[in-house]
């Protein structure tokens, strides 16, 4: 969620029971502003909090002029001092996908993982690397996975300029109530995967400036999002069931929207059994 709309947004997202303590809220305002100054970000998003067993990671993302470019991610253990996380690589994501269990809360903690493939293990040892992963890398990989899988925006909130860069749509006035209840009005804010597979008829209806992303309609498994109206219908809240803890809110007919993650950072692989 936007750093500037933090207080109101946290109120709207708190339906899940997890939020920030007043201490953290008070310090986030100023520390995110300082982040913007130090790293020269155009926008700073408070991404959320990953709960470890002994501590929690608070994550912020910084965006440059092209909002769809890879974002810089920072983490903090106390919301006061922030450290930049290394950019994510595919290898990190693959390795972190094998880890199970909770985060520890200590960024230098090393996981030892056993390779299923004996060949890979030998290869690693030859390279001189030991088969351990640092928790920092796991954090980066998890954030990337979550953003890729369930980071969403309402339709029309961002426009793609003819030059290819993406920026906020200043004419976006919010979704109407009926539109806000449909999953097709929300897009994944990441590289589209399914867009090319649409039939020509569907593509004809698309508006290339706003419909350049995948919508949530065809997410697998179906039903992995819950859409609820809270506060007597004033806010539309979407919660992801694949990554439990990701909450997206939008106040219909206004420009307020955002998503935040408060959870343990584990994918819910039991989802097909639970639906």
């Amino acid at each position, binding site marked *: 969620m936007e750093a500037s709309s933090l207080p109101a947004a946290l*109120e709207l997202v708190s339906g899940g*029971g997890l939020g920030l*303590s007043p*201490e953290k809220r008070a310090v986030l305002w100023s520390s995110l502003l300082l982040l913007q100054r130090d790293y020269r970000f155009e926008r700073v998003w408070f991404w959320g909090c990953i709960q470890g067993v002994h501590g929690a990671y608070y994550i912020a993302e910084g965006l440059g002029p092209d909002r769809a470019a890879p974002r810089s991610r920072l983490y903090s253990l106390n919301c006061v001092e922030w450290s930049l996380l290394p950019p994510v690589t595919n290898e990190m994501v693959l390795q972190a996908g094998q880890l199970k269990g909770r985060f520890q809360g200590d960024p230098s903690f090393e996981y030892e993982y056993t390779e299923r493939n004996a060949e890979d293990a030998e290869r690693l040892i030859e390279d001189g690397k030991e088969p351990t992963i640092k928790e920092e890398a796991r954090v980066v990989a998890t954030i990337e996975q979550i953003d890729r899988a369930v980071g969403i925006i309402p339709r029309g909130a961002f426009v793609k300029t003819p030059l290819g860069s993406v920026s906020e749509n200043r*004419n976006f006035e919010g979704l109407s109530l009926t539109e806000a209840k449909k999953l097709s009005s929300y897009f994944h804010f990441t590289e589209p995967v399914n867009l090319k597979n649409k039939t020509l008829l569907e593509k004809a209806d698309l508006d290339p400036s706003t419909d350049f992303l995948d919508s949530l309609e065809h997410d697998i498994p179906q039903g992995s999002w*819950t859409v609820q109206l809270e506060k007597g219908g*004033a806010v539309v809240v979407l919660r992801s069931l694949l990554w439990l803890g990701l909450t997206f809110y939008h106040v219909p007919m206004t420009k307020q929207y955002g998503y935040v993650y408060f959870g343990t950072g584990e994918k819910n692989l039991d989802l097909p*059994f*639970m639906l």
Partner: protein
Amino acid sequence: HGPYQPHEPGYGLYQPGYSPYDDQIPDPKSQTLAIQNAKAYLLKSSTTSGLNLYDHLANMLTKILDEQPTNAVDIIENISKDMKWAQFQKKMDTLRDEHEILPTFEAAEKRKALFLKPNGEGEEELEEEIGETPLPNVMETAFYFEQAGIGLSKDESYHIFLALKKLISVQPVQTCRFWGKILGLEMNYIIAEVQYHEGEEEDETEEEEIIEERGKEVDEVEDEEEKEKEYEPPVSTYKPPPVIPKEENGTGANKYVYFVCNEPGKPWVKLPPVTPAQIVCARKIKKFFTGRLDAPVVSFPPFPGNEANYLRAQIARISAGTQISPIGFYQFAEEEGDEEEETEGGRDTYEENPDFQPLSVAEMVDSLSAWVHNVQSILKQGRCVWLNPLQKSEEEEENEEDEKEEEPDDLQQELQQEIGPPLLTPLSEDEGIQNIPAWSAQPSTNLIPQYAVAVLQSNRWPGAYAFASGKKFDNIYFGWGHKYSPENHTPTLPPPAQGEYPSGPEVTETRDPTVAEELAFKAAREEALAAAEEEEEEEGTEEDEEDDD
């Protein structure tokens, strides 16, 4: 300056007829004519939409000049599009708006109703309310949890506060507590934990069930007697395992009564008491709640009940696993002759300790033995107090001295009494999962330790929290209602197919004997018979001739 030459920078910029020097052309009439032609063209209405460009441009420019947006040139196409849309929406607006407003307005009405005081109450009611009331101070609890970042927004907490007040005014409750919130797919559940005054519970439904069961048994006995006379296919020897009776209301897993509602403002619904079979099944399945209490729970093993029962079973499991209090707050009631009255499962009642000395926050956070469970844990059987299912009921136990009827079941010998950890065991005895401790403890703030609150999060049931600060403590649950397991959930496999018949030597297949074996067998038999012939009389030979086919 004059007409530019090709090598000068201004070349090509001037169009004939529009250069700044054309006003020196001595023909103003043709220019005004040109302007009028241009204006007439702009005023031409479009055949498809009925707009004309002149008005459209005029409106657009008016809007831009009124609002003065930054970088207007970048968004001018959007402004134009919006203006066109605005033309059409006016006609359809009234119809559409009326439909859209309804659902949110209804919900707002319900919430507003919470805030209104019911009619017909005089000053007498006020005095009663100020006295001791079972209403918990939800806002105070919410404040402490908020220090740790847990909890709903203040608005929602206040709505829940008022909804609980409404519940208390309707039901005769002794104690009431906001248990927590469970999220669901379509709607969420807000749950209140309530204890009735003694003797005020409604036992009508229980009596009805017992009467029905007894009626069925009588019918079955009669049918069996009649059927024995007729030819019947073999009766199945399958005896289903004995049904373990649920615990009495007010004890064990049914100690508290739970009310749920989807949103504050909606009516509270009472959840039915939980049976051991439901708890045992709930341990094996993992399903999301939909938010509708009558929704069926489709699962394997099939859950005996609908979502209301599943919800109640999960609430029972969560309470048993995560309701904790600081050590010393509760103590066992000391009565004379306690040892004789001890039931098999240990003590199940406690009372508040009037001499409770709270530990400091640092001590509460550092060691888990400063906290104890104050709800009985549920055994494997699904009850808090173990019950031998083969002993039919208490009445029959008394009769056992006279009639000793014990069915010679193999199962009976394997059933041993299940013992769980006794009430008020400290948390340090809780097992962790793999290398994660069962609870994570933190103070709410490191910057102001004097006023910090000790907060505990459960790792076994993610979403269960407890706080303690001085003499105040409370538990709460915000989550999806499932236990944490690092391994993926594997559903139970269906049991192997039941054997149709016992396999013995008379039924097992063997290879048919070969011709040589048959001849050898025949020869051997003939020798035996010949030997018998010599001993017997001539009757044996006739039988042999008949048998040789």
